[in-house]
């Protein structure tokens, strides 16, 4: 025993002696101490430009690669309505949203042409009649053939007449198309030194279409594209689009990362290729270090053509994204100044705590902005659900209406979000959006909240209360409604259950598991009564309308149409809206859709939680709050400066 003790003691002594010595020698100075540090839950696991699993992947992709119009959106309004000045001193004049339907500036790639071509203008889009050959080729590409209608498994269902075919083809591939002309500014290079020109853009688009399996998310838009070619020595790029949907165009211009031809021509199939260790892009930053799923370090390119335009103050040479998975450690680290900003939105309760106890984290500042994320209660009114219009003796809709009237959004915002949120109306578009549903006076329409009216409706529809105080169905059967939701929504569901008790309806929380999304999807069985859902507004398309309530050409409900609703009027209205090219007209048609949708009570808005960013000014100051975005965004990058 003595011998063993002696060994252990000497080991311990060695350890104790070694630790300070080791610490001193091992205490290397952290590299990149002057970098802008972002703490994130999830760091990109791969640098392939089109596969974003982590939220920060899009951030990194956007820094390494450019899109046609850059990935910068315009600086928005921030608190105080101050003026902004570009790095070269030019005062920024906000774009007229009516004039610019795409709501983006020409970004750093300096491409002109997102606007409708003005008289005498060289760049922009204009309509033209498609060549019949072109059209036929496009129809073939979209596999729209006369006489054959494909079913879900590719089998022939029936053949159609010429007129039917033409009607169908016109919808999919109209006879007049849009031609876009973009002009590229000279001098831009890839980060390995090669020259960037329109050939790369053409290559990228061809590549994506050819490899639809690999970059499928984007390729669907490009099925609308016929051909692009370069003119004028490589700096003008023409694109012919057989789609008239504004959203398609936005996606093409804003989401497609331009790939270098000289590198990617060696990778015929993106799915089978391994991670690219050295991504080559035209973006402002270059990859300096990639520690798989631990950290990513980006370095500003010396040879970036637009470096001077990028920064108002001194350039930010390095950006480091670090993984920190535990929220407590994130906050403490932020407070210390080891990181400068947390990427993800902070949970409302955490934000409230930090706000209340200012001495808990004295160096952490919070930015709370409106966001385009809407939390909703989705009611299953499809034919696989219990709450269709024809259910409950034709009173299904009345039930849904009463439920909608009973939701007290202000109280939910107060109790569940601690005040950090906005109320949203039944059109499911946030107040900040240009096409939001307005009331007669032109103000944002508020969702109606009226307990008495809800009770009256239910009484009138025959949902009578029984001895327990809860209502029964008109036929006398017991009525319990499940709300399916994940663990994090428990508080919200509790609050809802309490609200609904006021109108005598019994709601219960049903915990969703990993299979929840399967249960909810229409084709898997739509196994839910009500579901806590979320709706995100994406600026490039009016997503929740089409994906939520539309159907595919063969009649099956779209991917996110969970209940499988097939309301013909709604589908027509959406279709009408989608193909409208005048922006004001499109907004008006969007409002028409919202008005109609509101009356259906299919998806009841609960609130729109704010995006709460946590940041510190220990190392960098000049953060820009942007609506619908975190505090670290494209505009922030331009205006940040080191705290002295």
């Amino acid at each position, binding site marked *: *025993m*003595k*011998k*063993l*003790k002696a060994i*252990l003691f000497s*080991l311990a002594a060695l350890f104790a002696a070694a*630790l300070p010595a*080791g610490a001193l*020698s*091992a*205490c*290397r*100075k*952290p*590299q990149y101490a002057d970098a802008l540090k972002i703490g994130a839950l999830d760091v990109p*696991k*791969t640098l392939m430009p089109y*596969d974003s*699993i982590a939220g920060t992947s899009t951030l990194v992709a956007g820094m390494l690669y450019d899109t046609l119009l850059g990935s910068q959106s315009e600086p928005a309004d921030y608190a105080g309505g101050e003026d902004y000045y570009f790095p070269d001193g030019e005062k920024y004049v906000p774009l007229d949203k009516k004039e610019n339907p795409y709501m983006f500036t020409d970004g750093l790639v300096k491409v002109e042409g997102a606007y409708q071509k003005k008289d005498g203008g060289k760049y922009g889009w204009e309509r033209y009649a498609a060549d019949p050959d072109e059209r036929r080729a496009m129809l073939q590409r979209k*596999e729209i053939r006369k006489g054959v209608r*494909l079913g*879900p*498994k*590719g089998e022939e269902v029936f053949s159609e007449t010429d007129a039917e075919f033409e009607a169908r083809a016109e919808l999919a591939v109209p006879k007049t198309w849009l031609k876009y002309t973009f002009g590229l500014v000279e001098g831009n290079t890839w980060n390995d030194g090669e020259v960037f020109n329109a050939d790369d853009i053409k290559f990228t688009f061809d590549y994506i279409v050819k490899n*639809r*399996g690999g970059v*499928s998310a984007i390729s*669907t838009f490009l099925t609308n594209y016929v051909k692009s070619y370069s003119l004028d020595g490589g700096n003008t790029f023409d694109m012919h689009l057989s789609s008239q949907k504004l959203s398609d165009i936005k996606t093409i211009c804003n989401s497609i990362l331009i790939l270098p031809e000289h590198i990617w021509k060696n990778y015929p*199939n993106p*799915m*089978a*290729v*391994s*991670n690219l260790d050295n991504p080559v892009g035209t973006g402002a930053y270059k990859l300096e*270090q990639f*520690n*798989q*799923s*631990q*950290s990513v*370090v980006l370095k500003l390119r010396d040879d970036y053509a637009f470096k001077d335009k990028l920064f108002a103050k001194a350039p930010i040479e390095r950006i*480091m994204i*670090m*993984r*920190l*998975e*535990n929220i*407590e*450690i994130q906050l*403490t*680290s932020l407070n210390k100044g080891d990181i400068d900003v947390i990427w993800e939105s902070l949970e409302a309760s955490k934000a409230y705590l930090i706000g209340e106890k200012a001495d808990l984290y004295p160096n952490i500042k919070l930015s709370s902005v409106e966001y385009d994320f809407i939390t909703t209660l989705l009611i299953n009114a499809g034919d696989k659900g219990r709450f269709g219009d024809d259910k409950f003796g034709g009173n299904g809709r009345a039930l849904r209406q009463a439920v909608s009237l009973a939701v007290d959004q202000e109280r939910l915002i107060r109790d569940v979000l601690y005040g950090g949120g906005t109320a949203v109306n039944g059109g499911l578009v946030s107040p900040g959006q240009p096409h939001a549903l307005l009331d007669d006076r032109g103000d944002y329409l508020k969702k109606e909240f009226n307990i008495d009216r809800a009770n009256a409706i239910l009484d009138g529809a025959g949902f009578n209360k029984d001895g327990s105080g809860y209502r029964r169905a008109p036929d006398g059967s017991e009525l319990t409604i499940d709300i399916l939701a994940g663990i994090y929504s428990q508080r919200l569901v509790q609050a809802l259950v309490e609200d609904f008790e006021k109108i005598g309806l019994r709601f219960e929380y049903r915990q969703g598991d*990993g299979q929840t999304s399967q249960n909810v999807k229409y*084709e898997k069985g739509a196994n839910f009564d009500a579901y806590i859902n979320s709706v995100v507004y994406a600026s490039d398309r009016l997503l929740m309308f089409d994906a939520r309530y539309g159907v*595919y*050409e*063969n009649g*099956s409900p*779209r*991917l996110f149409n969970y209940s499988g609703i097939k309301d013909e009027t709604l589908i027509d209205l959406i279709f009408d809206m989608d193909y409208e090219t005048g922006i004001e007209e499109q907004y008006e048609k969007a409002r028409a859709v919202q008005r109609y949708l509101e009356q259906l009570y299919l998806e009841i808005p609960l609130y729109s939680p704010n995006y709460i960013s946590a940041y510190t000014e220990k190392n960098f100051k000049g953060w820009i709050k942007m609506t619908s975005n975190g505090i670290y965004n494209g505009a922030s990058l331009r205006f940040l400066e080191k705290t002295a």
Partner: protein
Amino acid sequence: MNTRYVVKRILYSFLILFIVITLNFFLPRLVFEDPAEPFLRGIPDDEFMLRNAVRKEFGFDKPVWVQFLVYLKKFVTFDFGTSYIYKQPVFKVMFDRIPWSMVLSVAGMLISIVAGIVWGATASTKRGKAVDNALLNYATITTAIPSFWVALVFVMLFAFAVPIFPYRGAMTDGYSLSINKAVFFGVAAGAVALTVVLYKLLKKPLIVFVTPLAGLIAAVFAAVPASDIADIAYHAALPLIVICLGSIVSYALMVRNSMIAVVNEDYILTARAKGLDKTRVLYGHTMRNALLPMVTSIGMSLAGIFGGSVLLEKIFTWPGMGTLLLEAQNIGDFQLAQAIMFFYSFITIFANLLTDFVYHKLDPRIKAE
């Protein structure tokens, strides 16, 4: 224990392994309806031709038994496919992270075993005294308190409040490990060869455990520059402390109870009656018997060495394997999940086999059927 038994056991293990591989193939296909799903994500449901094309490209259109044969063939060549999340060969993804988990678990286990034996043995000889009581009380406390809470508290105390230790990562930010793979594998292979030779020579079964371990450590020191080792050791200190706090106690308790039981046996009396001194009695007789249960326990936990603790790795941002399986399941990375499951099964089977052999050698009472 004869050769026939050894061969039989090995064959049996292979059989189990094969069953595992087969289950590994079929079970996910029963749970997830469509194994091609990750590849088809993003392709809208109405693009049927496209979906079929992708399916065909990755071999999902073939009948199941053909897929199974392809799967087996790839297995034998260590081709576990490409990870959907990481866009890299699964093999590379896994084996970039396993060594990090091993660093913590192996070091933790070693320290816990040595310290546990010392503490347990001392406590067993001084029953009722401070050492013993401390062990018993401490055991109660550690079983009640969850390790991740302890980890968080330690990070707050020793990494933030009093900044002795770093709080994240395995190395200082911005540095990465530079390892000389040739040297590493060379020394490791040498260690394996040495094990075989030494065992044939000395016939001591514990050599099977000890020599490879020593070889591994030697390989690490040979292949990795000292500054990197110091850096990693510095970062590993806090996680190790947290790990050992719990492990030491379980080993110490086991040793203590085992020794108390053995010390009361008659053969210890015989040994003392022979006039052997205390040390000889302790090591040759008492410990030799008392530590047998621990061999089994260590063998069982061998599989855990490679896995790593998910919670601790999350808290310390340690680049280990713990979170890998979780990610694979959440996102539905089929190939990765499959490979990890197979890996764990393989390690468990192998560890069982090894422990079995060693235990047979150590305890002659076990009959080899």
